[in-house]
């Protein structure tokens, strides 16, 4: 399919816009979740959306997105509350609370799902698709709903920007200022639920965790400021959504959700490696530079102090020798040592020796 044909394709437009909306909402909200060390809460909430989806279907009898959103909001929030209750009122830790809520709500969802399947309803087809998402079935009307949620959530976030920021980085201080820290934390969690709801259609409950974590984790590498991080996370989210959806459409048959998730993961890996300042690759480069510098100094020192001893012939030593020769510090000779310091080399060596003796009393 040619590109202009693809771009005017109705389904493709829907899928790409939907995926972009998902990235736009999950990126910024994911930043708060990741910074508050609640990355896996998104996972628990998204699994907990399943019973909500089923309940709304049982009540309304259709898989209309509005009802599904309300249903999954309710059960998602309930799961988050149960998690808080279990960890606050007993000696269970957060990880156990998360695992319990995730698996139990999902189990209830499975029970309800099989209950619906048992009750001969023709409209139930596609309900299961929420497990993995069904991007291709996205309707224009769904996009309006997803767009409205995204817009409302981001507006809310902008309105409570200062409070959300303070609670994220220093909840204690926020409390001493008299801010309703608990309410703001609850609001941030509820907003993650909204992001999850938008993602259900696109990537499904199972992979939603990645859409919360990955854009935020990538963005964290590029920015030290919350605002910048949010913008980058949104951009990463949108980019992975659009890329994943496009590949899925072009390949015909490869699931959209996994492709979006893998694109986001790839961006995380690139960010980890290349981000300025924090990137692992720069760290490695710096390490090798320092190592080479140290070896050069050691060799200069040795040649200066013991000019008649031939340098070692290991690979590393030979590499250092040629590096020094390139800088014009060394000259080849015919005697046993094989090399000798040039005038420039001797001057540099004196600096090294002076620096060394200054450092060792």
């Amino acid at each position, binding site marked *: 399919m040619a590109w202009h044909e693809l771009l005017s394709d109705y389904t493709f437009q829907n899928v790409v816009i939907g995926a972009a909306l998902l990235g736009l909402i999950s990126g910024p909200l994911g930043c708060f979740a990741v910074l508050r060390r609640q*990355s896996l809460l998104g996972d628990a909430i998204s699994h907990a959306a399943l019973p909500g989806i089923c309940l709304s279907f049982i009540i309304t009898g259709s898989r209309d997105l509005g009802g599904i959103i309300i249903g999954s909001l309710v059960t998602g929030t309930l799961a988050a509350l149960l998690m808080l209750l279990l960890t606050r009122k007993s000696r269970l830790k957060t990880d156990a609370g998360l695992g*319990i809520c995730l698996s139990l709500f999902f189990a*209830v969802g499975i029970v309800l799902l099989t209950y619906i399947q048992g009750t001969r309803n023709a409209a139930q087809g596609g309900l*299961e698709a929420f497990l993995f998402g069904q991007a291709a079935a996205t309707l224009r009307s769904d996009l309006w709903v997803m767009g409205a949620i995204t817009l409302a959530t981001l507006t809310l976030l902008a309105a409570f920007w200062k409070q959300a920021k303070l609670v994220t980085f220093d909840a204690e201080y926020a409390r001493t200022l008299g801010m309703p820290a608990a309410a703001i934390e609850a609001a941030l969690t509820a907003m993650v639920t909204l992001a999850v709801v938008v993602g259900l259609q696109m990537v499904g409950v199972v992979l939603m965790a990645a859409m919360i974590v990955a854009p*935020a984790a990538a963005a*964290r590498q590029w920015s030290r400021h919350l605002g910048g991080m949010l913008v980058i996370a949104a951009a990463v989210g949108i980019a992975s959504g659009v890329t994943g959806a496009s590949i899925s459409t072009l390949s015909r048959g490869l699931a959209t*959700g996994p492709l979006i998730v893998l694109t986001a993961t790839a961006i995380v890996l690139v960010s980890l490696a290349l981000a300025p300042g924090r990137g692992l690759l720069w760290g490695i480069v710096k390490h090798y530079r320092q190592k080479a510098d140290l070896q050069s100094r050691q060799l200069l020192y040795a040649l200066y102090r013991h000019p008649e001893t031939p340098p070692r012939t290991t690979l590393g030593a030979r590499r250092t020798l040629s590096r020094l020769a390139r800088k014009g510090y060394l000259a080849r000779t015919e005697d046993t040592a094989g090399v000798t310091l040039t005038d420039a080399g001797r001057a540099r060596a004196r600096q090294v020796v002076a620096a060394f003796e200054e450092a060792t009393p």
Partner: protein
Amino acid sequence: MIEELLNATALPIILVGAMVGIASSAVGTFLVLRGNSMLSDAISHSIVFGIVIVWILTGQQSGPVQLIGAALTGLLTVFLTEALAGTKRVKQDAAIGLVFPALFSVGVLLLNIYAHDVHIDTHTVLLGEIGFVWLDTVELFGLPIPQALVTMSAMTLINYAFIGLFYKELKLATFDPALAKAFGFMPTLLFYGLLMLTSSTAVAAFDAVGAVLFIAFAIVPASAAYLLTDRLWMMFVIGALISIASSVLGYYLAVHFNVSIGGMMAVMTGVFLILAFLGGPRYGVIARRLRRRRLAPAAKI
């Protein structure tokens, strides 16, 4: 009742459910105590990757090769998570949230590409089919025993053999890793062993209950037990009892309402957890409230 229990389909299903619970909660107990419960989530999702890879390489959907493959995938998951967290660029929880969806995604895509007409599909992967365990039997002692029951029993034995063999080492490594290390018990190695068993159990339980419900069987009975006792060995006993009770109750409720058997068994473990949470003798909400009320007059003086 007894006739019903000996009914050709009920007993195998209940036994498999109970065995899944006993084997999973054995390893789950350590995960809960160490604060690594969510690793069961990560492992149970990423073994989909392992299962698909082993299937593509060997054509086998179950059996020992799959168990070993799963153990290695579990290790891979934990290794990747630790490696990511070790870069200090992402936190531990975010690292888990990055690794398992990625592996799961690769697994699903490989299924998309290679599996058009095979039995493993994404549906089975998530839900399992405990209701059909009695269809696939092997002849043992002249009796048709469900394949799943044999696998799960073997897994239970292996798990408890490992725990029995390294009981005091595991105990110390769980409650005081620093001291265990000082004694030369290699707590990290023990932990990796435990995680390999967790993955193998997950893959063994896979056909029966699916990826997500395995988490319920691993974490929930162990958590309930944690709320009821301070003794490690007692946690195993309680975890096993809850698993058996959940399996029996879950089966009959599921049959009654005509819903997913595995799902209902998992829901039952949740019911026991809520009971332990509310009514536990020492750490339960009610007991604590009563104790506070009893102590209130004394506090006033």
